[in-house]
């Protein structure tokens, strides 16, 4: 009987915990694995994973959120961008096992109550998406940027997006969409301010 099964005899895991096949299937012994608890889009996931298991594989294959895409697996293209404790991060460069306790937001956590986030809405209206593969990374990078930049110029936006690669749009409409979303968000927050005063 493995150590893992012994633990199972004494502790009842909460419902969110499901020790999956990742470890057993990979034929590795337990020394190579670790238990990690991640909060993704507000839900807690506790899993035992191989220490080399990438965050992006955890998100995609353990949790089943397929909106985080793999484009290069060496941190250049930005398609796999997520918000890690609020900051944009490449999930292909992170080991899940090293992130115990982290808070993660993926593209699936952006549209609240089914309505598109203002950045998503602007991408739609200004045709800033073609094949859609790089898009989740651009959206999360933009959302992070706009949180701290209320009134960006197009040049500011270009600098903020320079680490994401898009091969379809030539970036022109992406820059316009982020610019439009910025004014939309700015408008929303000033309305909010007026309501507060």
């Amino acid at each position: 009987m493995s150590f893992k099964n012994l633990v199972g005899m004494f502790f009842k895991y909460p419902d969110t915990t499901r020790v999956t096949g990742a470890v057993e299937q990979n034929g590795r012994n337990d020394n190579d694995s670790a238990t990690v608890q991640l909060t993704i889009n507000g839900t807690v996931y506790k899993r035992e994973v191989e220490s080399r298991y990438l965050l992006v594989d955890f998100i995609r294959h353990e949790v089943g959120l397929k909106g985080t895409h793999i484009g290069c697996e060496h941190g250049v293209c930005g398609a796999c961008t997520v918000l890690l404790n609020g900051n944009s991060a490449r999930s292909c460069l992170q080991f899940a096992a090293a992130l115990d306790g982290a808070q993660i937001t993926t593209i699936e956590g952006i549209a609240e109550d089914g309505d598109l986030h203002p950045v998503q809405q602007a991408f739609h209206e200004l045709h800033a998406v073609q094949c859609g593969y790089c898009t989740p990374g651009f959206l999360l990078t933009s959302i992070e940027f706009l949180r701290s930049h209320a009134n960006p110029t197009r040049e500011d936006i270009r600098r903020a997006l320079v680490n994401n690669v898009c091969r379809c749009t030539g970036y022109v409409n992406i820059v316009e969409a982020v610019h439009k979303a910025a004014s939309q968000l700015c408008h929303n927050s000033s309305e909010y301010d007026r309501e507060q005063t």
Partner: protein
Amino acid sequence: MNAIDDWTLVGESILRREDAYLLRGQGKFVDDLPVPQNTVHLGFVCSPFAHANITGIDISRAVALPGVIDVLTGNDFVGDILPFKPDIKIEGYREISRPVVATDTVRFVGEYVAVVLAETPYIAQDAIELVDVEYDPLPAVARIEDALDREAPVIFESLGDNVIFKSHFETEGFADHFASVEHVLEGEFHLGRVTGVPIEPRGCLGVIDPVADSYTLWTTTQVPHVVRTAIADHLRLPESIIRVVTPAVGGGFGVKSHIYPDELIVVALMRRYRRAVKWIQDRREELLSDAHAREHIHRIKVAVDAEAVIQAVELKLQTNGGAYANYPFSCTLEATGAARMLPGPYRIRNYKYDVVSVVTNTAPTGAYRGTGQPSCFLAIESMMDRIGRELNIDPADVRLRNLVQPEEFPYVNAVGVRYDTGSYKESLEKALEISGYREYKNRQPKDRLIDGKYRGIGICNYTEVSGTGAPGWRVRGFAKMPGFDSSRVVIEPDGRVAVYLSQADAGQGHYTTFAQVAADRLGVAWSDVTVIEGDTSKTPFGTGTFASRGSVVGGGSIIRCCEKVSAKVKRIVGEMLEIDPSDLVLSDGRVYPLGTPDKGLTLKQVAETAYSMNDIAMPEGEEHGLEATDYYDPPMVTMANGTHVVQAAVDPGDGTVEIERYFIVHDCGRVINPMIVRGQIHGATAQGIGEALMEEIVYDEDGQLLNANLLDYVLPLVLDIPDMEIAHIETPSIDTVGGIKGTAEGGLTGAVPAVANAVCDALSGLGINISRVPLRPSFILAQIDKAAG
């Protein structure tokens, strides 16, 4: 029917319906599909040598790893999967074949040597490293000039040398015309090797139908029907038991219009192991072994009179075909494309070309956006500038004097391609106007030095081959490229419409634009039309989506198909209302006599009759159902056109090029959705800027690929791409249904020469002629240093 003047929805910038899922991360790309339990995951062992004999493969360490199901080598597929040997029927082409996994010899870095079957992708990766392959390295050739060297190692013994394709063409009396002209200018132009780099790498998932003996391959392709035929041919299976489906595809750019070894292997293995089989490519594999493009050398002579009018052009073109013939295009796609398209929008009546394509120990070349056109227009458009400098005439005026004039349409060019309509002169004049070209030129100092940078302006006029039909493929030797595309339009029992199309979207917005076309022609709401494509079991046979053909051939087929369906609707209603069917119109979801909309029926009511869901009998002789199928084979090609004007600044300190302003005039005939057309122009232009300034696959002399990652294969980022000022001209085709011309490639074709010419103009004060792309900072600095002596 070609001329349609009652468009309703065509021409509107309708927002895309596919955004709803793509923006939420809910697009189902191949790696997002649910996999059956017990799926086998593949990994490929790739050759690290450019040229070597395989002397032994020891799989024992790999198969001993827990979770490894099997490891197969080339010999395990011999007999099971026939080698690729594209059917190219053109004089001067010599056949070579490629096993899906190398057996005795490897011929490029990245060629498949063994296949690992494992329970998970991680184990497959581990096992790849445990397969011990022994190689006996052979001398390799990577470059065109080395391959043509008399002493060069011969890559295919069957060829005797390294030439795979030779082609010659000349117009009547060429030598005399050429000899009679005063000025002859010569130029040599090199294009670097590039590739499409869709952000989604390729991948496939093969699933066995649990009931019937049939196989479904989900694959990232632009050509699902061509893939299915290739599987049937190479695995000797009936086509009827194979279904090819494309999920959402993350960019294609021509790279995904080939059929690759892995697609055949996945199908063969699911048959052999009776399990689902999945493979997802990684970025290194994509850069090593997916179709590369360009690596062309043009040596061009232009005979020009004192008025700068071109009298004759002679081209010697060499291209690097790579180690094998990519299926189905081989290297002849770009080679014939570059040679045949060179006259472009210009009245070049006397033309001669000689093409030589070589095999080398590099990745096989094939299709990439623009195919051949960025290459030949770099040559001819650079020569336009050189003529201007030589004769002291503004390069814009040189172009104006040589363009095919408006009254000359329809025009047949020197190689026999018909230009039915076009706006060549208007396009250039408009581009000069919106870019302020003349004022810029008047202000420009002779040394081009403004505020510490060399600043210049460059022009490119281009034609864009689009919507190639069967005659266009045959004339270039592609025996198995159909040319037509097809649609099935069904008015469902509820009166709504389904359009089944033989093509496959890779981000172009088909689900929106083709719904627009059908809704427009059937007079129904756009939201009531569903478009289904990318599935061989649901759609009729067709060619697929590449070479700027989607809107021309797919759109044309839908228009024709809708005519057939609406004719049936009118016959039924005509009988019911005792009215001549030709007096009926379809509009607002209703069928009614022209001018009396309150008198007719709804489409739903007609459908109820057609599907026998009411007591009204069908007219005598009329079958049940309300649908039609159409196979549309367009003319040889349809030519779109446009002009790019670029202002660029070169920093003499670090050799970097900044694009300061970008102007585009674009004419793709009837526009279905202007917003989407602009998006295509933006994206293609950005790729052209990449090809002009930074992108290049680099092999060393021994055929080792030096930059198979995205840090070293430099893609354009948002700071590299300027805003683009775009003006449209709409000159409908008179040859294609609906007047549509294609639009996906012109941006790239226009950008490469326009950027190069802008840089060349900027450096003209130093006496520098630009003769290659990409124009990387190190190259520019070397040119400046050389000029300074």
